[in-house]
């Protein structure tokens, strides 16, 4: 019982982690609360579905995040960058408008019904783990989450673009004065954040069926993660996503009556304790 809960919690936590870290990246560089993030996750999943139909799942997992990354760069060039000096509230409202447009775009192209993606053949089996049969695909999702954590940490710690992104996030003006094209750095990181939303969408598609409401669900949960973790903090988002995943899975097992409400209760409790979130104001 205990290990099944842990395992399922980690699977959902990994998906949340990938989505929410994208949200945190976009907030970190552009100070934008991206209400369209859930819609982008959904768009990524549906694009992945179409690609999987014509090629296979692995193609979708590779190509759909790349397409979504391009979408993110376009979004940044068209909206976030020109509106950089506006107050954050108006940009938030603009992203809400983007959400409405993407939602209807998905309805128009793929319809309003549910579709599903098959688990890729090479992972469609069970592995015995700690004496328990566990689906291999779920293990792969957890591994993907871990890879994203390591990749992001490596990117920000050891590469030049990561260094510039950290600098631009801490103090964009001074960074720009040193001759860094902060606009280009921000565009790249927004693209990366959007690509991560797409990646999570594709990775989630064999587990949950694709439906027009999937964007709203993940958006609400990602917001809970980002608020608990602290706005714009990657570490906070990692930690909060795993925590939320575990609460979700143990809640369903032990407190089914109020499982749906538990994450929000946790959020309110944490905000009362630390209004700036777990990570505080550190990035």
């Amino acid at each position, binding site marked *: 019982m205990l290990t099944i809960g842990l395992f399922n919690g980690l699977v959902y936590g990994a998906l949340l982690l990938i989505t929410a870290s994208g949200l945190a990246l976009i907030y970190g560089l552009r100070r934008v609360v991206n209400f369209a993030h859930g819609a982008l996750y959904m768009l990524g999943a549906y694009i992945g579905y179409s690609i999987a139909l014509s090629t296979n799942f692995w193609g979708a997992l590779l190509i759909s995040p790349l397409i979504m990354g391009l979408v993110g760069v376009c979004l940044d060039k068209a909206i976030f960058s020109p509106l950089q000096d506006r107050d954050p509230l108006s940009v938030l409202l603009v992203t*809400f408008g983007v959400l409405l447009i993407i939602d209807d775009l998905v309805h128009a192209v793929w319809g309003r019904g549910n579709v599903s993606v098959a688990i890729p053949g090479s992972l469609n089996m069970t592995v015995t783990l700690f004496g328990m049969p566990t689906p291999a695909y779920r293990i792969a999702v957890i591994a993907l989450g871990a890879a994203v954590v390591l990749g992001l940490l490596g990117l920000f710690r050891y590469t030049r673009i990561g260094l510039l992104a950290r600098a631009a996030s801490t103090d964009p003006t001074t960074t720009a004065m040193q001759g860094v094209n902060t606009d280009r750095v921000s565009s790249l990181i927004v693209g990366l954040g959007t690509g991560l939303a797409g990646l999570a969408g594709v990775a989630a598609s064999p587990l949950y069926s694709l439906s027009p409401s999937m964007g709203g669900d993940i958006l609400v949960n990602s917001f809970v993660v980002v608020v608990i973790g602290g706005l714009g903090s990657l570490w906070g988002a990692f930690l909060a996503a795993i925590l939320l995943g575990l609460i979700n899975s143990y809640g369903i097992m032990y407190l089914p009556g109020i499982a749906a409400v538990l994450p929000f209760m946790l959020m309110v409790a944490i905000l009362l304790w630390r209004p700036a979130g777990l990570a505080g104001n550190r990035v």
Partner: protein
Amino acid sequence: MKIKSRDIRDVLLQLAVALAIGLGIATLVSSDTVLSLLAQAVIYAVFALGVGILLRQNGLVSFGHAVFFGTAGYLVGWLLERDMMPGGLVIVVSILVIMVAAFVLGLIFARVPGIAFAMLTLAVGQMVYLFVARSRSFLGGADGLQIDWPSSLFGLPLAAFYEPASMFFISWTVLFCLVALLTLLFRSRFGSITEAVRDNEERARFIGIGRLLPRAMVYAISAGISAVGGVLSALYTGFVSPESLHWSVSGAALVMVILGGYKKLWGPVIGAIVYFLIKDYLGEVTAYWMAVLGALLILVVVFSPDGIAGALSQMAPQWRRQRRPLPTAIPRRRTP
């Protein structure tokens, strides 16, 4: 709370004009479908008015006001089922309960930095939605709740709340009475205090204004107004569903507020009417009218942040804006 008698006279005059217009529309428009559309628009205008004053006085965007809108209907239905109070009292008690709950929530929310507020309201709103949608046993779950109204309310027969023409006029009257009350409230000291906290929290604290209490009070008032909208909606349809708590409903109200313009109290009213016109007329042409609204929302936010109301009052003749000269801050030197 000192209110100038000239302000009261102005507001009463405007209220009388608004009610006369409403009566004119209710009698002159004969098509029931148009009246029904208008009644719906006015009910949502009350809801949007609540969302709008939160943005106007607190500078905060709420993605969770559908909770107050929907809960009002549920609370009324639940209390009527218990049969403890007369119908009119049930409505008043429900709205007061929601205001008190919102006040407590507001005390918590006001601690959170501004931009996280929108995310927080969205999350809490979705929590209430999930809770109600899954509580099959006592709130009807996903099927919703049929409301058992008494045969007369506030001296009016129940049929008055079903008929589009009379319901349109009732909602219109409620809406403009609320606008009048809010106008007076925001011209009083309370209005200045909340605006001070909104514009510069730190300076407001320096001159001895707390930050939590004014914010929580505005939040409670805005929730109460949205709850009035919810009660009107429950009266008109006789039914409340969990969908009325969903965050897309909060989003729709926010679209109305931004399209209409939040800086004027009547902005959300115009926004709601425009929203329903677009929904009705565009909805016949294309299923994707929400995308059109989304594009419109982006255009308004980027190019005309004061919305339709802002654009209209810019076009209004100059004398209207000249009537209230700013008080001079420097005391005039008396000539010897």
